[in-house]
């Protein structure tokens, strides 16, 4: 109890110290914002999204042939012709965003001599946000063909199976990745510097004079940083809402709690590095080793489903992956904390392991 009280006092004063450090503040509060805005514009620009579509063509009509040709030549859809079973399996792995079925006789001329028929699109309900984007786009394509055929009523119809609601923008898909990247930046890049500076000046050694243990110092510092990290995430989120019209579909409590848990986990890595390293030169390479795989394999910038399956099996265990996945599920799919069991389990194990390591490898000087 006495030990926890000491942690609490340390947390308060470390936080006070942090807010007086202009450079640290810039790097935790302003820098991620700049980053969000830049990458938000790059990833969330007006260019239209593209979809991986499995095509099953059962129709032999001329119209359907032309339709398939045109769709293939367009930039929006990446079409692969295949059969339903394998398409379904691959969609399960995320290789396809949707399956488009052209039924037999699609495009046959009706009494008025116009091609008509109904397309069916199938998608994974777990990937609702991609599917809704896909449907909206496909509907747009059909609408324009309809318009060309000058019809009052539309002979070509799109039938969508699950229900879709909001229109998500590219930015909406990207925000989870950007938040994940910020958490990593705050937790590892700026954190891993922290202790090494205090080791250099000797202020850490001065604290070692007092009867405190490494875990108290680590927990106090982590709490302080998590608090600051949450403020930073709040800033990022508000910016996303204001500048990029972010479409929040989840609840704020799940979002806040999940980001806090994720932040706590990732910050453990920064703490472990900073606690172990004697100086910045020791910290730097370790930081690289840990952040590089996170940066490229956690789905921040590159969707994990583009990777070979064996790699996907590995990447799901990289600690940032379940965080980015979970954030995405909350932000764009409206999932709650209760739906994130598997993610929370992986994060939980990592958190436990990394803090135990951090306590163990900590060096005061």
């Amino acid at each position, binding site marked *: 109890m*006495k030990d926890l*009280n*000491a942690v*609490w*006092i*340390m947390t308060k*004063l470390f936080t*006070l*110290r*942090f807010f*007086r*450090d202009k450079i640290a503040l810039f790097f935790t509060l302003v820098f991620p914002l700049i980053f969000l805005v830049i990458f938000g514009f790059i990833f969330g620009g007006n260019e239209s999204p593209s979809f991986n579509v499995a095509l099953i063509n059962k129709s032999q009509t001329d119209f359907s042939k032309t339709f398939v040709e045109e769709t293939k030549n367009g930039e929006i859809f990446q079409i692969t012709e295949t059969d339903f079973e394998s398409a379904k399996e691959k969609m399960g792995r995320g290789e396809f965003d949707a399956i488009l079925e052209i039924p037999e006789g699609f495009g046959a001329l009706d009494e008025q001599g116009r091609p008509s028929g109904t397309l069916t699109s199938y998608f994974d309900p777990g990937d609702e946000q991609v599917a809704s984007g896909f449907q909206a786009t496909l509907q747009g394509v059909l609408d324009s063909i309809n318009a060309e055929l000058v019809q009052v009523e539309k002979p070509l119809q799109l039938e969508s199976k699950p229900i879709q609601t909001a229109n998500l923008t590219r930015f909406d898909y990207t925000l989870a990745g950007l938040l994940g990247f910020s958490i990593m930046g705050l937790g590892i890049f700026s954190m891993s510097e922290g202790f090494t500076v*205090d080791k250099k*000046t*000797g*202020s850490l*050694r*001065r*604290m*070692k*004079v*007092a*009867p*405190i*243990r490494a875990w108290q110092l680590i927990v106090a510092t982590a709490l302080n940083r998590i608090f600051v990290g949450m403020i930073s995430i709040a800033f990022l989120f508000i910016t996303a809402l204001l500048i990029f019209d972010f479409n929040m579909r989840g609840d704020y409590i799940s979002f806040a709690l999940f980001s806090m848990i994720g932040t706590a986990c990732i910050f453990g890595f920064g703490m472990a590095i900073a606690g172990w390293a004697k100086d910045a030169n020791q910290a730097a390479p370790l930081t690289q080793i840990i952040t590089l795989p996170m940066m490229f394999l956690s789905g921040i910038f590159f969707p994990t489903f583009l990777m070979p399956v064996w790699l996907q099996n590995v990447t799901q265990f990289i600690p940032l992956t379940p965080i980015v996945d979970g954030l995405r599920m909350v932000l764009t799919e409206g999932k709650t904390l209760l739906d994130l069991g598997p993610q929370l389990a992986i994060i939980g194990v990592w958190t436990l392991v990394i803090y135990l390591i951090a306590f163990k490898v900590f060096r005061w000087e």
Partner: protein
Amino acid sequence: MAETIVEVRGLTKKYGKKTTVRGIDFDVREGEVFGILGPNGAGKTTTLEMLEALRPIDGGGALLDGIDVKKHPHKVKEIIGVQLQSTSFFNQLTLVELLRLFGGMYHQTVHPYKLLEMVNLRDKAKSTVDTLSGGQRQRFSVASALVNKPKVLFLDEPTTGLDPQARRNLWELVQDIQKTGITIVLTTHYMEEAQLLCDRVAIMDNGKIIALDTPDNLIKDLLKKGFKKKAEVQQADLEDVFIDLTGKDLRE
């Protein structure tokens, strides 16, 4: 005779093959100011830091107020105050905040202003350490070592680098602290300082204690050997001139 509060027996430190503290023994008595003198590299800091549970002890051991440093380093830390030879404090916190921080680590209620009053830094309460002069910094360092109302206070070269005024000021502080009943162990390179402050001194060289007694006895022993100062003894020295010219008031 006063009780023994620090009991050092066969204390040894090795760095690789080199033994820098070679099985030293000494006792410090409750309430005294105990000085450790010795040339650079003699092992003074190493000795203190072993007693302070900051460096592992490679041989022998020590009891502080009956507590074994090797077995209960954390318990020892609770009853001692430490001023390190070279130290630094967070520059983003004020003196008051730093004292609160250190107090928190000892789970003690601190009275920052009282402590600052004692070391004559009351008007600097809201300043940060980087704006203090060398002497003020040393005094703050002493204040920070007092947050837990220690039984034994360790001061490692508290006056090195200070001007004569600041040094005299710190001497007074040490004497004031001694009056409150705290035992003080200090190191110094200034002989007149040792002579003035210390009840007893140990002279260390090459990792060994080669003499230990009151300053008066050590001088008497030397004179008994027939020692004579080469130069004719003057009634004043250059330091007296300096103090006479610049006064005793603290600058900073």
